[in-house]
């Protein structure tokens, strides 16, 4: 029988990591994602699967605990919201440099600064374009439903270990807090220490006579070697770009006007499409699921088909830069965003699409 539960997004991902065989969670409370730690503590994970859950003294400590666990080949994670993720950037960069797999969850709230606890998408640049120092990328998954919050726990860990990379689930306060039904999977057993040593020969597990010592470090003072390390990382990111692009399209077959949106904004656009189609407007949606790697090719393909593209983001316009790269000037691209924690309404979004691209004389007025 199917195991279906009504859950909050934050609870769903917490349940998802337990069932995905997660070994350890280290985190620090912050709204709107504290339910992740609360749920894990309540779930008695030590008894259920042996998963370790620890409330750290800060996000800085959290990410470095994740580093320590990941370097032992464990499936480890942390979660936070925007200000906490900013604090973690040094640690994330160290994990990029040492190629340590981990799962990171950012339930984004409005910024800058302490900002607001309301949902926002203003951390796109931080997640997708870098965040910490150095030339590196994270795989960034953008859930648009509570089910995806749950699903991306396992997907995130699988990708993290497949590529030895850090995977960030870039959610927002709305997806984290809202309740939907979730279809749950069977429990995946945690890996044993023997399995880990066999599967990941690079881990620190105590040097045995049959091998050289294992060292986890991002330091190499020799620029020639450091360049080689960087080239290796870039090759990995290229491979990911070639193989891991994920997106979803809605009503795109005959679309003349295209929304591009992820996460909560995509949910708003889904509703806007219904409203538009009711009016006879041929509107569709491209929803990137991976923000890195970004679905440039799909954007390019659709750009040739449609008369206008509207990026809808809860930010002043961040993903739009990637959309423009994909569009490459083929068609006009507009942006609509609400800032500071406000979720746009579907009719508002549709109205902007009409105003920019569809109503006569207004063509292109609000493009930027």
């Amino acid at each position, binding site marked *: 029988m199917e195991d279906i539960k009504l859950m909050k997004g934050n609870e769903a991902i917490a349940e998802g990591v337990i069932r995905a065989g997660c070994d350890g969670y280290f985190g620090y409370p912050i709204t709107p994602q504290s339910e992740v730690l609360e749920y894990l503590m309540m779930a008695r994970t030590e008894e259920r699967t042996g998963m370790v859950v620890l409330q750290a003294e800060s996000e800085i*400590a959290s990410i470095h605990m994740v*580093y*320590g666990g990941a370097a032992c080949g464990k499936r480890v994670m942390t979660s936070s919201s925007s200000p906490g993720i900013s604090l973690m950037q040094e*640690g994330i960069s160290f994990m990029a440099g040492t190629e340590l797999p981990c799962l990171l969850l950012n339930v984004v709230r409005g910024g800058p600064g302490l900002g607001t606890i309301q949902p926002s998408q203003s951390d796109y640049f931080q997640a997708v374009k870098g965040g910490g120092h150095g030339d590196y990328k994270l795989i960034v998954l953008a859930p648009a439903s509570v089910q995806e919050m749950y699903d991306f726990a396992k997907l995130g860990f699988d990708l993290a270990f497949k590529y030895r990379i850090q995977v960030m689930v870039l959610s927002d306060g709305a997806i984290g807090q809202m309740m939907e039904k979730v279809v749950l999977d069977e429990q995946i057993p945690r890996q044993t220490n023997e399995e880990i040593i066999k599967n990941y020969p690079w881990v620190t*597990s105590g040097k045995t*006579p049959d091998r050289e*010592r294992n*060292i986890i*470090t991002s330091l190499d003072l020799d620029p020639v070697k450091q360049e080689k390390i960087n080239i290796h990382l870039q090759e990995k990111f290229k491979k990911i770009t070639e193989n891991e692009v994920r997106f979803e399209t809605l009503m795109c077959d005959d679309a003349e006007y295209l929304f591009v949106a992820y996460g909560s904004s995509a949910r708003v656009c889904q509703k806007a499409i219904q409203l538009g189609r009711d009016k006879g407007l041929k509107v569709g949606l491209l929803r990137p699921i991976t923000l890195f790697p970004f679905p440039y090719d799909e954007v390019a393909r659709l750009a040739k088909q449609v008369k206008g593209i509207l990026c809808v983001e809860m930010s002043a316009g961040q993903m739009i830069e990637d959309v423009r790269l994909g569009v490459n000037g083929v068609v006009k691209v507009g942006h609509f965003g609400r800032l500071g924690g406000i979720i746009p309404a579907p009719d508002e979004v549709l109205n902007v699409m009409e105003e920019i691209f569809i109503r006569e004389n207004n063509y292109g007025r609000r493009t930027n």
Partner: protein
Amino acid sequence: MEEELTRESICQHENLVYSRTSLMTPKALSYCPGCGHGTAHRLIMEVIEEMNLQSQTIGVAPVGCSVLAYDFLDIDMQQAAHGRAPAVATGIKRLLPDKFVFTYQGDGDLAAIGTGETIHACNRGENICIFFVNNGIYGMTGGQMAPTTLPNMKTATSPYGRDVVTMGYPLKITEMVAMLPGTCFVTRQSVHTPANVRKTKKAIQKAVQCQLDKKGLSFVEIVSNCNSGWKMTPLESNKWMEENMFPVFPLGDIKVPKS
């Protein structure tokens, strides 16, 4: 006639009284001649070897002069970001509680940028060992003021001496962590004389045993010289350390494990 002593006749296995610890790699140490880091490394490795723990050990190297400790120690190691070694060690130990886990940190790493991680790992009573080399200065970056720099001591960033009114006082973090119930063994030692080396080795043995007995966090401070940073010869620096560092950082056990 007595047999003539030659180099070859002396260098026989039966005459050997001192040799490289097998857990030190053949790589030449990168530390300045006269510095205490090398001795501290060797003592830790001797203890791990004697207690037969190599295959159980995961060490954490800090940012500081000993950032490359993993080049010299033949054990699995992780390099941590500046100050974060106790958090990294926490992650390791929580997930692999049967391993022997230690951090090796300088005073800037442990008592400035990493104060939070140090205090909280101690307060949680993480079952790890922290080996803390206090040389009163930032050695690696060229001799800047450390949290443990003495009052009036000249460094690159306190060129007229540490003015305690504007720059604060030497931080006695070892006394601080001794107050926390999570620590089981807290001691301050040095490695500048053979007698002190022997005492430090005993302290390291005790710290390791505490971890094997799951007693909580043991914290071994080693007050050391930094002859380059202090701009002295090794001999001068050891004398200066005795006369100036030890009154502020007195040697001896601060907290002993309950039996």
